[in-house]
C-alpha cells in the first residue's frame, strides 16, 4: 500500500546507459585476467611468428621486412580480438542478460553500444601489447610521433568496426557461444588475402583485384604509410592521407551497416 506513492524512476538516457553497460564489461575484463592475458598473447605471438618464421622469405621493396610486417600483423590482430565479442555477446544472450536490460527503461541502443565501447578498449589493449613487442623486435616509426599515434588510432577504429561485425554475428548465432566461436575464422581469408603479410602484387591477378581493394588492405596501408612514409607509399601506390581517409570511411561504413543490423536485432520484439 505504501509502495503506491513511490515515484516511478525516470529511466536512463543514452550516455548514462552507455557508461553503465560499458563499465560492466570493463570490470569483467579487468577481473578476468585470463581474457586480458590470452588476447594480448595472441597478438604478441603473431608478431613473433611472422617476424622470425617468415621474415626471410618475403620481399618488401625498400622497406625492411619488420617495418613492412608490423602494421600488417597489428591490423590483422585487431580483427581476431573482435572474435571475443561474438562469444561474449552469445553468452550474455544465453544467460538472459539482454532480457533484463531490455525490460529496463534505458536506451536500448546502449545495450550494444556500451559493449562495443568496452570491447574497443580491449582491442586497444591487445594492440598496445603487440606494438610494444614490435618495438622490441626492431620495428621503428620512420615518420614522426604523431603520425605513429594516428596509425594506432586508425587501427583501433578499424578494430571497432569489426567489433560491430562480431556483435552482429554473435547476436545472429542465436545465443550459442560455440557457434559464435566458429565465426572467428571468418577473418582468416580477409586478413590473408590482403597486404597484411605479403605485398599484393605477388598474388595471382584475380586475387590481387580483390585484395587490393578490400578494407583490411586499406587499413594496413594506412598504418604502414603513416608509420613508414615514402617507401611505404611507393609500395602501396598512394599517400598516407589517401589511405587514412579511406580506412576511416571503411570503418564508419562497416560500423553503420553491422551496427544497424545488430541494433535492429536487439530492438526487435
Amino acid at each position, binding site marked *: 500500500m505504501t509502495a503506491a506513492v513511490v515515484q*516511478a524512476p525516470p*529511466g536512463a538516457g543514452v550516455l548514462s546507459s552507455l557508461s553503465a553497460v560499458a563499465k560492466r564489461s570493463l570490470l569483467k575484463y579487468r*577481473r578476468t585476467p585470463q581474457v586480458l592475458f590470452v588476447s594480448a598473447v595472441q597478438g604478441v605471438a603473431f608478431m613473433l611468428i611472422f617476424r622470425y618464421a617468415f621474415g626471410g622469405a618475403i620481399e618488401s621493396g625498400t622497406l625492411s621486412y619488420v617495418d613492412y610486417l608490423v602494421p600488417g600483423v597489428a591490423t590483422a590482430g585487431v580483427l581476431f580480438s573482435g572474435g571475443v565479442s561474438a562469444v561474449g555477446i552469445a553468452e550474455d544472450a544465453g544467460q538472459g542478460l539482454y532480457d533484463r536490460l531490455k*525490460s529496463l*527503461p534505458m536506451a536500448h541502443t546502449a545495450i550494444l553500444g556500451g559493449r562495443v565501447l568496452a570491447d574497443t578498449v580491449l582491442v586497444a589493449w591487445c594492440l598496445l601489447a603487440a606494438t610494444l613487442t614490435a618495438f622490441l623486435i626492431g620495428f621503428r616509426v620512420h615518420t614522426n610521433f604523431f603520425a605513429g599515434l594516428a596509425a594506432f588510432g586508425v587501427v583501433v577504429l578499424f578494430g571497432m568496426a569489426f567489433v560491430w561485425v562480431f556483435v552482429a554475428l554473435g547476436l545472429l548465432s542465436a545465443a550459442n557461444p560455440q557457434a559464435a566461436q566458429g565465426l572467428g575464422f571468418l577473418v582468416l581469408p580477409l586478413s590473408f588475402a590482403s597486404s597484411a603479410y605479403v605485398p599484393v602484387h605477388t598474388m595471382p591477378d584475380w586475387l590481387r583485384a580483390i585484395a587490393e581493394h578490400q578494407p583490411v588492405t586499406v587499413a594496413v596501408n594506412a598504418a604502414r604509410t603513416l608509420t613508414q612514409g615514402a617507401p611505404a607509399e611507393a609500395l602501396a601506390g598512394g599517400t598516407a592521407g589517401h589511405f587514412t581517409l579511406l580506412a576511416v570511411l571503411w570503418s564508419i561504413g562497416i560500423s553503420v551497416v553491422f551496427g544497424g543490423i545488430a541494433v535492429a536485432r536487439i530492438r526487435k520484439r
Partner: protein
Amino acid sequence: MTPTIEAVGVRKRFGEVTALDGLDIVAEPGQVVALLGPNGAGKTTFVRAVATLLRPDSGALRVAGVDAVADPRRVRRLIGLAGQFAAVEGAMTGRENLDMVARLFGLDRRAARAAADRVLRQLGLEEHGDRLVRTYSGGLRRRLDLGASLVGTPRVLLLDEPTTGLDPRSRIELWSVIRELVEQGTDMLLTTQYLNEADELADLIAIVDRGRVVAAGSPRELKARAGRDVVEVHVHDRESVAAAARVLAPLGVGEPRADAATRLVSIAVDSGSERLLESVRALAEQEVAVEDIALRRPTLDEVFLALTGTSAARPEDEKVTSP
C-alpha cells in the same frame, strides 16, 4: 482501482506455433497472481509480453493502465523482471550489479547507491553485497537477481519460474523472501509449473494451457472445483488391494482407484469425515490388513488434471511414451 495487469484476448504466434491463443487475465492491486501450467503452455511468452520484450499480434495488454504495446518505455518504468536465468554478472559484486541496474533506471550516483543498499537489506544480502557474484551459490544468485528486479521500486514484479532449478532448501528460502515482499505491498505476477509453489504464494491462480487461461480463482476455489475429498487406504499386502477396493466401492462416488504396485486404494467421497469412519469400520469388519488410512483434500494437481487432461510437472510421465 486500475488493475496492475489487464490482458484481453492476447495472441502471439511464432511461425506455426500459437504461443498465446487469446489469453485473458486481470490482476488487481494487492494481488499475487500465479500463472500455472505445463512447459509450452505460454506462461513465459505472456510474461515476456508484459515485460515489453515481445509485442502481441493482437489483443489488449495494459500494465497499471499503460498500454504495453503502444508505450513500452513507460511500462518499463513500472515493472521489474526476474527471468528464468539469474541474469547477474559474476565478475561484479552483488552491490555493483544492483548499482548498474539502478543507474539504468536513471537514478543518479547517490540515489543508485541508496537503492542498492536498500535492496541488499530487503533481501538479507548485506553480508554478501561486496563479494563477487561468481562466488555465490545458485540460491544466492537467484536472490540477487530477484533483488535486481526490485531496484526500480516496481509497481509490479514479474517472476518467470523463480525457483526452477533450485534445491528444496533454497526454494523455501526464496519463497520466504517473496512472501516478505508481498507483505510489504509488492504486486506480483509469477509463473510456475509447481502446484505447491502457486498454492504457497498466490492469491489468484490462473491455470494456463495451450495459450489460454482455462481456469482462474483462489487456491481454495480451485480446489473446491476439483470437488470431493478422497479416502486413501494403504493396505498391507498386494492381495488385500482387491478386497479393500471391494469394501470401499459402495461408500464412495464412482469407482475406487486401486494400484497394486503401491498398494494404494483411493475413492472420492461426499462428506469426507463420515465416510472415513465408515471406511475404517467396514475394512475392520472384513479384516482387510490396513497399514494406513487417511482423508485427503483435493490437491491442485487434481484440479489441473481435471481441467487440462495433463499433469503439470511430471516429465517422467512423458518419457514413458517415447521409445
